[in-house]
Each structure stands twice: as structure tokens, then as C-alpha cells.
């Protein structure tokens, strides 16, 4: 009999009898009885046993998750092909029937082709070359433009766009709210007109909300750089205001005072990069920690480096919103933070006594 009472956590994990028990207790009743009795007898080992058990279960869950995901993808591929076959069968069946029929059915062929080959209802034609997409449903609607850009039109919103873009620029008109994911073309800026502001990009993703009944208009940037300017009326002498936004920044335009205010989005996201950020800090100097946060989110954090230079921090800040991270950090450092313009400003007495 092994002297399990001297086992470390790792030794438990690597032990075959232990592994079998944790994974398949109900299939090995004798083993189950053995371990339960053993734990009662050697109750001081319970912490090690629990930790070892958790490690094994975590790997087990992960393995099962991957296995099911694999099956999910396989079944989806089958399903996708089956669905396509089904549509083809329906289409050929229809065409087959119609081919035998008289001239009046010619109209039906046109309608049939349109219904089966496009997955979204066709946009309305407005004027000569412009199309209008209206979303009257309660779910977002996806639109793909000729340049490959994709726009998600939210409910109660409208988008007008030309059948073919200009050679020099790509222009659309938005009323309501939409998320834009614009294909990058350095020679052709993409411009979104709303009744209050004009947003111009080369290739980025962002959200614009411009509802005529609402006081504020906002533009929130997810990736890339965006320039937002107010629409200046001919009678105004001054030029319009322009604001350049970076990821995680937003600008709010007030229809009442006709001013733009820059700030940060409600939930800043970590910038897309190859680096996998780790926000667990152990005795980390505070400067280093703020640097990491700045790099990860692309947001400037302003604080008095001198007074915080002796501070170090222990904290586990993964998997939480940036503002929750800031809240915990400030709690630990006995400081406060606030969003000023598009920066985070931290104030506190620091660690110099």
C-alpha cells in the first residue's frame, strides 16, 4: 500500500488510482469507498486532496469542452451542406416545373430566383443610384456593401448607400444606430453622414448613434482611427469642429449646445494584438502595472509618478472590465480615478511617507 499520507498535490494528481477516482467515482465503487475512508482517516490531507481534485476536474472539463466543440463543428458542416442541398433541390424543382409551364410563369421565375438566392429582403431603390435599407424589425440587420464593408443596422434605423461607390470616396447616410466594420482602402475614405456629424475613416470599426429625437449623437471607436466633424452650416463663419478618435474613445455631440465632447467608451476593450495580456500582479511596481494597462487598452493613464514610485501592488485583475480594474487598484492604493477627456487620471497620496 502506498503511503499516500506523504503525497504532495502533484503526486496525487499523477497517481493512477487517484485520477480514476476523481474522474469516474461512480464507475469504481470500491475505489470510491477506499478514498472516502482514507480521507476521513487522514483528514489533515484534505487541502491537498481538494486541490489535486480541482486540477484534475479542470483539465477534464476542458477536454470535454474541446471534444464537444469538435463535434459541434463537424455536425454544423454536415448541416450546412444538407441545407444547401435542400435549397438546390427546391430551386431546381421549381425551375423544372416552370420550364414546362406557359409564358405567364416567366414572372414567377424572376421572383423565385430573388427569394432563394438572397438571404435578406432586397433594399428599396431611392432615386437613381441610391438604395435604402430600413430596419423595422426588433433584431439587428446585417448589410454587406460592394467594397466588402459590413454594417449592422440596429432596429428603427435607416441606411442610404449608392449601388456603386464613387471613385474617390465611399459615402453613406445613416439615421439611427449602426455598427460599422469598414474594409480598408487608403485611396477611398469611407464617410458616414448623419444629420449632425460626419464620420470619416480609411478602414476601421466603430458605432454611430444619431437618433433625431435624441439630444446627443455619439461615435464610439472599436478599432482604427476615426475623424468626426460637425456639419457647418453655410451661415456660420467659423469652420466646423474636428475630433480625431482612437480605439476605446468616443465623442458625444450635443444638439443643444452644438459641442463635441471626447471621452472613453463604457467598456474599453483590450486592443487586438498577438500578445496575450496577463493582469496578475505580484509585488509589481505601480509604474509597471500602469504601463501594462496603457499598452493593453491604448488609453493614457495620468498619475504622479514620483509619489507613486515606491508603491507596489498585489492584485489579480484578469477577466474584468477596465473600470473594475481601476476601482480595485484605487481601493488598494487608497486613490481615486476619473475619466478626463480620453485619459484616466489617478490621484492619491502615493506611498512616500
Amino acid at each position, binding site marked *: 500500500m502506498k503511503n499516500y499520507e506523504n503525497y504532495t*498535490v*502533484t503526486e496525487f*494528481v*499523477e497517481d493512477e488510482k487517484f*485520477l480514476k477516482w476523481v474522474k469516474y467515482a461512480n464507475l469504481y465503487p470500491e475505489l470510491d469507498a477506499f478514498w*472516502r475512508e482514507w480521507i476521513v482517516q487522514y483528514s489533515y490531507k*484534505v487541502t491537498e486532496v*481538494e*486541490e489535486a*481534485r*480541482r*486540477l*484534475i*476536474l*479542470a*483539465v*477534464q*472539463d*476542458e*477536454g*470535454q*469542452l*474541446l471534444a*464537444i*466543440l469538435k*463535434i*459541434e463543428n*463537424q*455536425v*454544423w458542416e*454536415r*448541416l450546412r451542406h*444538407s*441545407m444547401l442541398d*435542400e435549397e438546390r433541390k427546391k430551386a431546381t424543382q421549381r425551375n423544372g416545373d416552370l420550364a414546362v409551364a406557359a409564358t405567364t410563369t416567366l414572372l414567377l421565375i424572376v421572383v423565385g430566383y430573388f427569394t432563394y438566392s438572397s*438571404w*435578406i429582403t432586397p433594399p428599396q431603390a431611392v432615386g437613381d443610384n441610391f438604395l435604402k435599407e430600413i430596419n423595422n*424589425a*426588433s*433584431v*439587428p440587420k*446585417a448589410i454587406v456593401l460592394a467594397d466588402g464593408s459590413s454594417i*449592422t443596422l440596429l432596429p428603427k434605423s435607416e441606411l442610404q448607400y449608392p449601388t456603386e461607390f464613387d471613385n474617390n470616396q465611399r459615402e453613406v447616410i445613416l439615421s439611427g444606430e449602426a*455598427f460599422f466594420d469598414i474594409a480598408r482602402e487608403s485611396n477611398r475614405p469611407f464617410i458616414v453622414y448623419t444629420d449632425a456629424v460626419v464620420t470619416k475613416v480609411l478602414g476601421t470599426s466603430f458605432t454611430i448613434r444619431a437618433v433625431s429625437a435624441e439630444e446627443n449623437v455619439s461615435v464610439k471607436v472599436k478599432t482604427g482611427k476615426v475623424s468626426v466633424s460637425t456639419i457647418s452650416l453655410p451661415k456660420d463663419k467659423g469652420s466646423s469642429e474636428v475630433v480625431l478618435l482612437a480605439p476605446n474613445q468616443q465623442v458625444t455631440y450635443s444638439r443643444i449646445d452644438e459641442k463635441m465632447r471626447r471621452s472613453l467608451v463604457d467598456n474599453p476593450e483590450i486592443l487586438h494584438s498577438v500578445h*496575450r495580456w*496577463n493582469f*496578475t500582479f*505580484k509585488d509589481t511596481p505601480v509604474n509597471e502595472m500602469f504601463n501594462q494597462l496603457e499598452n493593453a487598452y491604448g488609453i493614457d493613464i495620468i498619475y504622479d509618478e514620483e509619489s507613486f514610485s515606491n508603491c507596489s501592488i*498585489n*492584485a*489579480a485583475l*484578469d*477577466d474584468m472590465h477596465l473600470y473594475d480594474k481601476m476601482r480595485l487598484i484605487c481601493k488598494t492604493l487608497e486613490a481615486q480615478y476619473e475619466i478626463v477627456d480620453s485619459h484616466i487620471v489617478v490621484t492619491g497620496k502615493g506611498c512616500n511617507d
Partner: protein
Amino acid sequence: MHHAEFDNIDDEALWLEIRNSNRQALEVLYRRLFKMLYQYGCKVSRNPTLVEDSLHDMFLDLWKYRENLFATTSVRFYLFSSLKRRMVKNNDTETKLSRFDFQAAQAMYEKEFTQEDLMIEREHEDQRIKRLKKHLQDLPPRQYEALLLRFYNEYSYEDIASMLDVNEQSARNLVQRGLELLRKYSEILFSYILVCLNTRFFF
């Protein structure tokens, strides 16, 4: 493919979108519910092929007869019971399971299928295990692989070595290192997150 714009749409709204021939909505619903439905199917029958085929057929029919879909107050309830019905039917015609096995499965279904089951995640609810899983995913890829091969697939170190193209000692080191890192991460968390110690053990 992940359609992020559908993240906040509930099942019942997706259902109506499917009726309107929205293919994306079907994929979103499929991916949202597959794991749960699959795990449920595996409880009804121990034959994984039967479960996969039934899931495939169910979603295909959903699409084929989408115009006849009626509004439902619980899409999940409908899909779970539809899956079970279909598995019973498929199995009868194929007679893969013996009669006895099937009756046992039937009994298990009768006893366990409740509304509550639909809501409870059938994973370990222990927060510490959940966090461990997150850290597991953050491990260097080869250590991650090694841990899965050793403790999920239960391969020998010899086999793991040849699968990862290293010698046996390196394979052991990968597992050791992986375990060390996992333990190190959870140790930090444990000290600095205020959590009521879970004194209820597994028995």
C-alpha cells in the same frame, strides 16, 4: 462563425428570425444550444452517433419546415423534447440499442427532465475550477496539450512524447511545469480574492 450582433437576442426572437429564413439566426441558435443539447442527448442514449445524427436531422427539419414554425414561449423546452422524441424514433427504426437499455434510458429521461434542468449548467459550479480552466487556457500551448493528453486522454508518457515529438523526460517536464504554473496562478488568486471558503466537500 460568430455573429456578435446576435449576442443579445433571445432564443424566441431567433426562432422568429429563422421562420423568416434568416440563416445566420439558425447558426446562432445552433451554436448557442449545441453543447447543452448534445450533453442531454448523451444522457438519453449512450450511442453518440445516434445523438449526432438526431441533432443534425432536427436542425435540418427546423430549416426545411421553417415556414410552419409556430411561436413558442420556450425554444429550449421545445428543442429538448423534440430531440428526445427524435432519438426514440431513430432508435426504434435502427434497433441499435437493446430493448432493455432503451427502457432504462427512457426511465432516466422521465425522472430527470424538468424545466430546472434546462437552466442549470451541467458543469462543475465550483468557482475555483472555473478559474483554473481559464488559467489552463492561458498556459503555453505545449504545456496545455501535455496536460490534456495526460489527464483527459490518459495517454502514457511514452505516447505523449511521440505525439508532441519530444523525449519522454521532456514530456514529463511539460506536465510538471504546467501543473506548477496552474498552481501558482490559483495560489495568487486565492490569497487576494475575498471568497467564502467552500467548506462543503464533494461528499
